[in-house]
């Protein structure tokens, strides 16, 4: 058929093989090539012509739709045009034929005329003029150009003589032949014409249409063959009337005549159908995406174009739709959206982060500023202080020494003040970090009172009382606790004009808030009166006096106090146990009006503006105290009555160090007590700043006397009823002198010992003997008030014994390391090996520790701030060799006040003792070579990170050798 179509005569219009309804623009759109007529464009294309199942009846119906009509109209037009064209061609052909016929007729006429003429001439003029012949021949020639067959006849030659009869005859026959030929030609032309006409008739429009349609169909097939689309037509009931389905899941037979519901089930079908119905109802084409999830082809998304089909009458008779699978695209699109959302979230997070980063940076800058400021203020001050210290080492008389002492302590106070301000801001900014160190509460209390006494300018009694059940050593931030105590004491001193100021430290066994309050009340009552009888004191606060009792008879005391002694021991044994230290700082001062109490702990607030004017001060002290106490997990409360006094009470949790340490340390405490006769560390002790004042200014002897009176009063406090009574019955005069003597005798010694002891070890011995004398004299004095010193001595000797036979497997190790993480790891390992360890953070601290304690082994980090391990080792070795410390690392003065005896004791021990093994912990880096470590006097080294194996081996090696 197609060939036929191509073989159509040279007709330019019909060469377009695409139905013309697609029109010019379509032609452009499809950019179809104009094939030459002899070419079969589809020669190479193989159509797998499938029987298409079409509801033809429906097609007819559709042909009646608007579109169908226009299609038909086009076909008609086209056909008509072609018909007209064919008719024109035929007419032309006919014209040509007519002309030929005419010529032939003319020819015939001529021949006839010639014949006649010949006949005539035959009869009249025999002469023949062959001019016409020539003309005819030309005429034929011209004509024969079109027809070769005819031209050949021109060649016929007449052999006969011209104008003879035979000639004419021959000529006549030839002409006859020509005529015959002509007639034949005419006939053939007619035949052809007829054939043409017949042919024309055979090209019925239907045939042409079907050809064209087939062509279009082929094209459509070709184009759509691999397109992933579904094209379908559905009638008004949404039954499929036609479908082109790329997907081979459904055969056409399964679809035609059915609705979507009958074919598929699942998500999306309902939606699509409702949209289709909507399209039919509104008559507006639409494009939508439908997400299907059917058992047949799973989850897929189709974009579907649905258009309504109208009948001629304008009513909707169905829909056409084209659907394309865009599942992948949708997935990609969703992925993209997801990524975009994540990106947005990420961006938001980033801005948030950068914001917080900014805040952190700001905070850090503020902290830096704080540090810089403290440094700026502190460094000149420390310059002054260190100069003073150096000055103290020069040759000075006693008076100058005392002055320097005060200078140093004042300097310390200023330093403290600066630290106060910085501390408060630190605590508030959350930058305050608490340090855990082992300390002795007794010493702390004593030291605080001592410091207060040093700067005391009033007739006040400073007293301290420490419950016997308070552990010798506890773990806590000693600096901060001392700071709190100093603050409270200095406040108390400031607001007390006569009477006393004191510290009462106890252990709260069951941390009951009721207990605490009760304690506070008791004290308030206790110090409310100026005349305190010892009996009353003993009655209301049994722990004030329990020291003496305890030493006399421990068990009795235990019953008396209602504190089971075993409890104390249990705590000790378990180690790392938390005790609650209850500390009262009381005074008999002006008190605080009740309405001012709430403001008391506020910053920059004092009880009243009057007070501020009168007493000065920043008003920061209590705020810092409260914050510090709370930071340590405790509470700070106050009870006060105007003109009677105030009691500040804080309760703090403190850890008790492990037992080994505990059993070791009292030794030193006791021995120190023994040496310096500071036996009053044990329970309660008193300060008579007057003594110091008298030494400072010997001229004011009258003052001195009155102060001594105060001192005596205070000394009544050691609460033994019998003693008290005795004293009061004896009258003041005799005992007073005794007291004065002993006090004066004792006080300078201790001062001397603090100042000079480390330079002159010989002096210590002398001091010790003096101290012994003092204690014995004091022992005489207090023998009536209790056998405490004797008991103490007894205990000490017991402890000494235990030290003589130490349990060798538990060595005491000093760990010197600045890195917290390393500390915790090493500590855990050492603890697991069963060793007791002390931890310090740099070389300087290591030296201090060595000055105070004896260690079996030192593990020393090399790279540390302040003083590195090599230097520290050198110092320790040099001390071990020479017996004295280098000037730069000599024990600090203010520490010596408390630790003088201990260090001197240690010094003795070390002098006689052996070399402490020092083991370096190196990071194996360029700065820390093993040779250097050994050269500095270290015994060995282990490389970091410390692991269980190498630390164990090392310890075994060095601890066994001892």
């Amino acid at each position, binding site marked *: 058929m197609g060939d036929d179509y191509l073989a159509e005569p040279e007709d330019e219009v019909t060469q377009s093989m695409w139905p013309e309804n697609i029109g010019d623009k379509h032609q452009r759109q499809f950019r179809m090539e104009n094939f030459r007529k002899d070419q079969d464009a589809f020669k190479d294309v193989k159509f797998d012509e499938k029987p298409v199942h079409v509801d033809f009846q429906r097609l007819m119906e559709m042909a009646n739709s608007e579109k169908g009509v226009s299609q038909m109209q086009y076909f008609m037009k086209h056909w008509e045009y072609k018909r007209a064209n064919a008719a024109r061609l035929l007419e032309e052909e006919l014209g040509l034929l007519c002309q030929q016929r005419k010529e032939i007729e003319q020819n015939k006429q001529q021949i006839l005329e010639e014949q006649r003429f010949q006949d005539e001439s035959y009869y009249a003029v025999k002469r023949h003029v062959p001019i016409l012949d020539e003309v005819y021949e030309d005429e034929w020639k011209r004509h024969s150009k079109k027809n070769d067959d005819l031209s050949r006849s021109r060649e016929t030659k007449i052999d006969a003589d011209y104008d003879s009869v035979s000639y004419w005859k021959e000529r006549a026959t030839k002409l006859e032949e020509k005529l015959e030929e002509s007639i034949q030609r005419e006939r053939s032309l007619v035949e052809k014409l007829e054939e043409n006409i017949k042919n024309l008739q055979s090209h019925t429009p239907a045939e042409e249409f079907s050809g064209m349609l087939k062509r279009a169909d082929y094209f459509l097939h070709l184009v759509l063959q691999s397109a992933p689309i579904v094209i379908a037509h559905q009638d008004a009931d949404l039954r499929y009337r036609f479908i082109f389905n790329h997907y081979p899941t459904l055969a056409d037979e399964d679809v035609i005549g059915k609705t979507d519901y009958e074919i598929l089930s699942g998500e999306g079908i309902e939606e699509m159908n409702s949209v289709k119905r909507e399209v039919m109802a509104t008559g507006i084409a639409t494009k939508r995406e439908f997400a299907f999830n059917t058992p047949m082809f799973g989850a897929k998304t189709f974009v579907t174009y649905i258009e309504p089909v109208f009948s001629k009458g304008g009513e909707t008779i169905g829909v056409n739709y084209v659907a394309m699978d865009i599942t992948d695209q949708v997935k990609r699109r969703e992925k993209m959206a997801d990524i975009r959302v994540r990106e947005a979230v990420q961006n938001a997070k980033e801005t948030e982060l950068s914001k917080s980063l900014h805040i952190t940076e700001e905070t850090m800058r503020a902290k*830096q500023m704080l540090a810089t400021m403290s440094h700026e203020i502190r460094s000149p001050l420390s310059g002054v202080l260190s100069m003073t210290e150096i000055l103290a080492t020069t040759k000075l008389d006693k008076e100058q020494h005392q002055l320097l002492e005060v200078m140093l302590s004042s300097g310390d106070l200023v330093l403290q003040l600066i630290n106060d301000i910085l501390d408060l801001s630190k605590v508030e900014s959350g930058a305050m970090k608490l340090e855990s160190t082992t300390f002795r509460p007794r010493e702390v209390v004593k030291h605080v009172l001592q410091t207060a006494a040093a700067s005391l300018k009033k007739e006040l009694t400073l007293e301290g009382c420490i419950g016997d059940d308070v552990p010798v050593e506890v773990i806590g931030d000693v600096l901060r606790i001392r700071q709190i105590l100093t603050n409270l004491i200095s406040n108390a001193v400031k607001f007390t004009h006569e009477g006393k100021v004191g510290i009462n430290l106890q252990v709260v066994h069951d941390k009951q808030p009721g207990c605490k309050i009760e304690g506070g009340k008791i004290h308030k009552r206790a110090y409310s009166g100026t005349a305190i009888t010892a009996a009353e004191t003993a009655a209301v606060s049994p722990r004030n006096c329990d020291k003496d009792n305890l030493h006399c008879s421990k068990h009795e005391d235990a019953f008396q106090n209602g504190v089971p002694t075993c409890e104390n021991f249990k705590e000790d044994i378990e180690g790392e146990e938390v005790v609650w230290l209850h500390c009262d700082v009381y005074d008999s001062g002006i008190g605080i009006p009740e309405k001012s109490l709430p403001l008391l702990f506020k910053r920059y607030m004092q009880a009243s503006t009057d007070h501020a004017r009168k007493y000065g001060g920043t008003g920061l002290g209590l705020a810092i105290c409260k914050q510090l106490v709370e930071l340590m997990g405790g509470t700070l409360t106050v009870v006060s009555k105007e003109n009677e006094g105030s009691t500040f009470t804080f309760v703090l949790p403190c850890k008790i160090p492990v037992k080994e340490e505990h059993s070791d340390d009292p030794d030193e405490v006791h021995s120190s007590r023994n040496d310096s006769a500071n036996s009053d560390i044990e329970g309660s002790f008193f300060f008579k700043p007057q003594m110091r004042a008298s030494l400072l200014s010997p001229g004011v002897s009258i003052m001195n006397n009155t102060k001594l009176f105060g001192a005596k009063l205070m000394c009544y406090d050691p609460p033994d009823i019998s003693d008290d009574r005795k004293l009061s019955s004896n009258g003041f005069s005799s005992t007073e002198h005794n007291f004065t003597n002993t006090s004066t005798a004792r006080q300078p010694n201790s001062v001397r010992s603090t100042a000079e002891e480390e330079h002159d070890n010989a002096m210590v011995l002398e001091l010790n003997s003096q101290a012994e004398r003092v204690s014995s004299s004091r022992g005489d004095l207090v023998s009536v008030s209790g056998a405490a010193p004797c008991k103490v001595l007894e205990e000490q000797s017991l402890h000494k014994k235990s030290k003589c036979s130490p349990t060798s497997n538990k060595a005491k190790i000093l760990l010197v390391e600045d890195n917290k993480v390393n500390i915790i*790891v090493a500590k855990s390992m050492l603890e697991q090996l069963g060793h007791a360890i002390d931890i310090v953070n740099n070389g300087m601290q290591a030296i201090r520790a060595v000055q105070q304690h004896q260690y079996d082994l030192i593990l020393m980090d090399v790279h540390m701030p302040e003083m590195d391990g090599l230097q520290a080792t050198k110092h320790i070795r040099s001390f071990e060799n020479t017996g004295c410390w280098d000037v730069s690392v000599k024990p600090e003065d203010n520490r010596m006040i408390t630790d003088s005896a201990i260090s001197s004791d240690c010094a003795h021990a070390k002098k006689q003792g052996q070399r402490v093994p020092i083991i370096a912990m190196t990071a194996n880096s360029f700065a820390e070579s093993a040779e250097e470590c050994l050269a500095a006097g270290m015994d060995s080294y282990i490389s*970091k990170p410390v692991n269980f194996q190498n630390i164990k081996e090392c310890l075994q090696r060095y601890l066994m050798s001892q």
Partner: protein
Amino acid sequence: MAAAALREQLNALLSSMFASGLVDDQFQQLQMLQEDGGTPGFVAEVVTLFCDDADRIISELAALLEQPIVDFDKVDAYVHQLKGSSASVGAQKVKFTCMQFRQLCQDKNRDGCIMALAVVRNEFYDLRNKFQTMLQLEQQIQAQQ
């Protein structure tokens, strides 16, 4: 039942941390210390301490490197600290990057240091995330029991 699943998850996490070289034998030692020493929470304590410490050091380092004139000695000291800590907990990757960092400090190569800091920070954050997950899992296991 849930505890077992959590434990499995924890083990998988730990073995992946070991496998990827994020932590090394030293970390195993810490775990052994915790188990043998009967000190539950020891690893958590060490890890938390390390994370806080490292975090602090990294921010210190960042601040130092931002200064117009970088104090390389200080930077070096901090990196040394970080290296020590990471070695102690067995944070291998952080340790290695610290070692490289120190080399760059020695060369006083500021840009290199900044880059190294970024690397250290990345490694550390990665590790910290893992550690946090680990601690959470441990806590959950604890809570289940």
